[in-house]
């Protein structure tokens, strides 16, 4: 089972996993790591390594989902990138994370990661774009 670590600024990752559990119930192979204002890079690196171990990354691979490309979670995660086994995907959102749990059994890590990138993008919708022309 492919694992996921949601690595974000503050408690956003924990909150996203709470939201997932509210929608689909208990999930396994998932962990959250938070950048705190006082946390050093080395400390965060160790927490990320522990979270990857917890979700079984060594045996089954994992995806690290971070909140923002260019932010500390993404910057720190890239040191763990092992294409094909551990992927780093930025811009995590709830549709992306839900799709991870519903499809992780069907694809190898790199295909799953690419699918989730596309699904996360499709999850961003401006509602007024859906209105017929002239009604917006």
């Amino acid at each position, binding site marked *: 089972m492919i694992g996921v670590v949601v690595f974000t600024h503050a408690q956003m990752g924990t909150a996203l996993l709470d939201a997932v559990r509210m929608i689909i119930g208990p999930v396994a192979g998932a962990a959250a790591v938070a950048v705190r204002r*006082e946390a050093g*890079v080395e400390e965060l690196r160790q927490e990320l390594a522990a979270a990857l171990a917890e979700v079984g990354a060594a045996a089954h691979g994992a995806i690290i989902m971070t909140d923002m490309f260019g932010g500390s979670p993404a910057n720190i995660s890239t040191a763990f990138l092992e294409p094909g086994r551990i992927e780093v995907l930025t811009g995590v959102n709830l549709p992306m994370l839900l799709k991870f749990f519903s499809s992780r059994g069907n694809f190898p890590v790199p295909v799953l990661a690419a699918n989730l990138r596309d699904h996360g993008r499709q999850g961003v919708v401006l509602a007024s774009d859906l209105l017929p022309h002239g009604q917006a």
Partner: protein
Amino acid sequence: MSIILTRIDNRLIHGQILEAWVPHLQVDCLVVANNEIAAQTLQRTLMAAAVPKSIRVVIASLPVVAELFVRHELDAARVLLLLANPADALAAHRGGIPFAELNLGNLHYAAGKERYSCTVALDQNELDDLRQLEAVGVRITSRCLPSDADCDWKKLLDGGGQA
């Protein structure tokens, strides 16, 4: 114009820089002087890719960045200069990068360091490096985010800084 702010930040370019400091300072050039990142192609590429296209990015070793300043190649830019630690700040200043003020941003705690604030922890060597910079006239203050108060670093040392 050139250097608008020189900051020690062990995360170099990250969220606080891109989302808080760049808009606050209205800089148009980010300069990272760091020997380790300069030598790591993937890290350097990813760090540069995160910066909006309207901002010029230079990520290079300390000597290469010093040379840019010595040759006045960045004089037309509004520069935010990022350094990873006090030793690099001292080396940069000695190498000819003309900063008169130094912002202490993220210098996080690790074993062997003393914690002076939420985001500033220093060991004895780092204290000595900063004292040497101060001795040659550099004004050193601590301010993690633009919304934080600018605090003279000596107040941190005296225990008078923010908790």
